[in-house]
């Protein structure tokens, strides 16, 4: 095995909360393995859950997605923010649709340059469910760059990052492909 030198790494087509651009192995170490994800009710009306991700090479994001659970209700909004919480692109309020499957949202193709960003999912009710992972307590979320915000529906132009109010990290992500 040899060390060639630092090279920027491009994403595997999709960037999501478990990918190396996101929290990757952190989740596994903290107990939030992908295969432990299960459907659970959204923890707060109009709340947003955020996860940081890093981009190493310029990419063009074409779609965002969340993983709906067993019950769909109301509306969702997803967005990409910069590291200061400024909204770059969002889906806008959209009816949650399709149980136990990815819901894919087409967005204006958006170029992201190498930097740190945030993906956010917000929902306007607590009947809606999403597949989420848990870590055993909400404090672990700080260690895996999982944050929350109380009033995030629809996703505002700027968000002040806060703490999660529940042990809840929704499965969500984005793609640079045309098909998820």
């Amino acid at each position, binding site marked *: *095995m*040899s*060390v*060639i030198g*630092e*090279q*920027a*790494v*491009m*994403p*595997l*087509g*999709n960037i*999501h909360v*478990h*990918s*190396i651009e996101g929290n*990757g*192995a952190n*989740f*596994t170490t903290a107990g*939030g*393995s*992908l*295969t*432990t*994800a299960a459907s659970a009710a959204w923890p707060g009306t109009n709340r947003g859950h955020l996860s940081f991700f*890093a981009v*190493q090479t310029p990419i063009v994001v074409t779609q965002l*997605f969340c*993983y709906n659970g067993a019950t769909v209700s109301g509306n969702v909004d997803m967005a990409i923010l910069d*590291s*200061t919480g400024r909204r770059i692109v969002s889906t806008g309020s959209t009816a949650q649709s399709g149980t*136990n*499957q*990815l819901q894919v949202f087409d967005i204006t193709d958006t170029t992201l340059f*190498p*930097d*740190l960003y945030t993906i956010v999912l917000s929902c306007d009710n607590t009947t809606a469910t999403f*597949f989420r992972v848990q870590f055993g307590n909400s404090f672990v979320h700080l260690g895996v760059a999982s944050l929350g915000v109380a009033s995030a529906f629809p996703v505002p132009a700027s968000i002040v990052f806060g703490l999660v109010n529940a042990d809840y990290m929704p*499965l969500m*992500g984005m793609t640079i*492909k045309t*098909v*998820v």
Partner: protein
Amino acid sequence: MADYPTSFHLLTPSTISTIGQYGLGANIGSLGNPTSNTWPTANKALFIPFRVAVPLNVVQFLLFTGATKSGNVDVGIYDVSGTRIVSFGSVAQGNVNTLQVVNTTDVFIGPGLFYMALAMDNTTGTQMGFAPAGLTTDMTRMLGVMEMASAFPLPANATFASVSQAFIPLFAISLGGFS
């Protein structure tokens, strides 16, 4: 603006597998041990994404036959647009519970994003892979796995479609050569 590493430092391995650090790697977490699985649909191809940061010379494909062998397989590499870079062509599946080494025409790939492709012409033969409890079809979609029906032997141009089963085959490309 927050401080963050400017690049990930990937070491250069001798093999790149579907679940290694260049492939689905840390995305997966704990999948458990690989198991013997029948191919989901005859003539279907599965495409597993992987990335390389420097040019690498691919010399072999490494396949892992499960508990039952039957029919033929085909293995190859595609670019992100679905254009085939190299494939071996239809070959009889290897012996059960044994590594099958397929020598390919040496080809340089990278840097960039690619897909390792595997197709089988039947649903009797088995391949080692991962289909653990808790892994859903849509999780597999999230990971970036793609598929194409009616793709045996592997076509010159693939039309990627959303994957429709919760299964990640275990196979690899070799950069150093196995005897």
